[in-house]
């Protein structure tokens, strides 16, 4: 292989211009970036980080307001849209109510290791965080109408739903 000759300044600048002009890269999808940033919620300070299970939650049920849900009796709850996601041995039960201008998204994580889980509600423009209590219940309040995916970090699992128009 012939020895590489050192470029002069003009040649380097031409090379830089050429690289800029041929740069067709784009940013990764915003939800992927947010997902990656959120990995730090599992403690980075631990010396031995157990491998995370990455799960995609599948939408199993989507009931519009005023339709009775499974075993649902409360008139108040019947006004909520109800969604059920499943990811392996974990389920995410979500109830969405709208005040017109914004949403309240309540729910419960069902499955082992869900108490004290961290949740994020993610859209391309913004994200909102909350934590589940010791019963796995959570709430996002005053959320603007829009499309969101739900991300859950529970134990050794990172669970993501598809984006849903709320």
């Amino acid at each position, binding site marked *: 292989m012939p020895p590489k000759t050192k*470029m002069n300044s003009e040649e380097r600048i031409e090379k*830089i*211009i050429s690289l800029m002009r041929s740069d067709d890269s*784009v940013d990764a999808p915003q939800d992927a970036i947010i997902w*990656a940033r959120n990995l730090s919620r599992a403690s980075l300070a631990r010396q031995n*980080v157990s491998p995370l299970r990455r799960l995609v939650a599948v939408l199993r049920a989507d009931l519009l307001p005023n339709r009775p849900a499974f075993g649902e009796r409360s008139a108040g709850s019947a006004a909520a849209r109800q969604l059920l996601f499943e990811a392996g041995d974990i389920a995410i039960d979500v109830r969405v109510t709208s005040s017109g201008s914004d949403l309240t998204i309540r729910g419960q994580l069902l499955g082992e290791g869900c108490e004290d889980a961290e949740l994020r509600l993610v859209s391309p423009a913004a994200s909102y965080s909350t934590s589940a209590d010791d019963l796995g219940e959570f709430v996002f309040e005053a959320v603007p109408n829009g499309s969101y995916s739900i991300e859950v970090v529970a134990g050794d699992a990172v669970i993501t739903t598809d984006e849903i128009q709320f």
Partner: protein
Amino acid sequence: MKTEPELLGAAPDIFPASAVADSDVELVRACRRGDEDAWARLVDRYQRLVFAIPRRAGLNDEQAQDVFQDVFLILFEKIHDLEQPDRLRSWLVTTAKFKTWGLIRGRRNLHSAATEEEMELEMTNLQDSAPLADDALIELEQQHLIRAALGELGEPCSEILTMIYLRDPAASYAEVAASIGVGATSISPMRARCLKKLEKILGR
């Protein structure tokens, strides 16, 4: 094992990248201390490069996103085990290449080799690694370093060079002048000075 100048290929003296490497070392150390902001900065710094590699290899956006998530998940898991934090960029490129190759070969669950050397060895055993040829990866790395350097340029240089060279179609001098509030005849000499500044940053 390839050294950094060899990995930079045809023009190693354009991008010594030592300043970037030093900055990566600090970021990795902060991540190891549990600094969540540092991790977010690390993701933001490299997200475009990591996403670009599977796309350049011809994968669609959904597949590229799979590679992207795999790479950052592995980095997250191995952040304490990186032996050479100053070679973080190289590690990310190699890991993305490895995962991309696995996807192309239909072996999505390919176990990641523990070190860069093991991944490189496995990939050299491929009959066809053309979608991920070294030249293509070198170009992507150099473009990444240019974008990072543009971020250090400050205004109006960053705006001038982005509008002229990174937009498609490229902005005219009149558009650039209107954007930064100067006369159109000023753009050409400003452009030249900004390119010199960019060259200097990349040469550190």
